[in-house]
């Protein structure tokens, strides 16, 4: 069955540079620099990427960063906690908007 997401498409990511090679070059250089060891370790950055991948629900990124995390020595328990962080922030972001609802409801109500 055809789907919009095909795992094989991930290998074709490089083709994105054909439309705008200079922009792609800048992006990929930036990308590499972001994930290099810095104040944060590569391992920490991989865990952040995994959590963000779940927040934005990108299947390519989840696939890629699950593997990266394993290769950086991250355990499934640690990855699961990172996903819960993502979940908590997403859920909390919805819930905290309840203050707006409450303010508006209060203003409109007698």
């Amino acid at each position, binding site marked *: 069955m055809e789907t919009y997401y095909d795992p094989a498409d991930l*290998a074709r990511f490089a083709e994105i540079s054909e439309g705008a090679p200079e922009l792609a070059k800048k992006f990929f250089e930036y990308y*590499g620099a972001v994930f290099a060891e810095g104040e944060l370790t590569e391992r920490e950055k991989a865990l952040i990427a995994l959590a963000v991948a779940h927040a934005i629900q990108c299947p390519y990124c989840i696939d890629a960063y699950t593997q990266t995390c394993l*290769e950086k020595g991250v355990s499934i328990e640690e990855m699961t906690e990172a996903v819960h962080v993502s979940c908590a922030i997403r859920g909390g972001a919805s819930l905290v908007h309840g203050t707006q609802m409450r303010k508006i409801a209060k203003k409109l109500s007698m």
Partner: protein
Amino acid sequence: MAVDAHSAVGPAIDNSCLECRPEPFFKTLARHGLEIKRDRTDTLQINVGFYCNQVCRHCHLEAGPGRLEIMDLHTMNDVVAYAGRSGFQTVDITGGAPEMNPHIEYLIEDIAPLAGRIMLRSNLTALGNKQTDDLIKLCCRHRVVIVASLPSVKTSQTDSQRGKGVMDASIAMLRKLNNFGYGQAGTGLELNLVSSPSGAFLTASQAQSEKRFRDDLERKYGLVFNNLFTFANVPLGRFRSWLQESGNLDRYEQRLAESFNPCTIQGLMCRTLVSVSWDGYLFDCDFNLALRAYLGGLKKHVSEMEGAPEAETRIPIGDHCYACTAGAGFT
């Protein structure tokens, strides 16, 4: 650090092309203008048999309790005589679980005076199966370097690779080794750990892993060690079967090939090591031993060898060699 599109969004990017087969290893070497030839051989690796108390899912030799191929005393004498006429700097004893060979103490006693450095590869649990600590005491006496398998500091990962309860037993044995002085500063008793991934993925950086192991083992268990080595699993034997059954083989092989690092060739262990199997035949490494790809392509028994293999002789290669040339390599 500049990267290309294949590096962005992590390593899985190229692996998703499941139809793609990796370029044959010999072609990759040729493309880089490289070849693998023997250097001066300074290490004798002795595989004393495939008998083991564990059935590790990544084992390229498919070692286990059902494997009865064990080096006998006659072959051991041939090996000791070979070491005596060849002048190896290092002797590296492996298996299976070498502790389970009934003649292991005899081998260590006889070969220790013939080499500057003796290494014993241990899965830690077999060392603990001994009724007494005589083998550990013997290792202390001969300053045998113990190279112990510990895939992860996480119980779930260690047990999933090596069997239920292995982590706890390994920690108990590491504690005993520490008590004997192994891994402790100033004792001269070296305890090194080996970590290989518990799945179809590559290893973490050796330096980063060593720091994490050191911190975690010290904090959680009060354990110390000297060095940690990280190795990629070689897609042979039981590990290959698991890769096939789990649908990971193509992707894993592709990942290894993509991680080919030409800088690893110079330091490959097969260039300076000769491996002798339980039945006395010679190989360029333990992986070629698993494939029965003989030393230099010729079947030769240790009793027929005049000395260490000559430099510049060719080493049989295959696609399994990608595991030793991926990333930082296999030493």
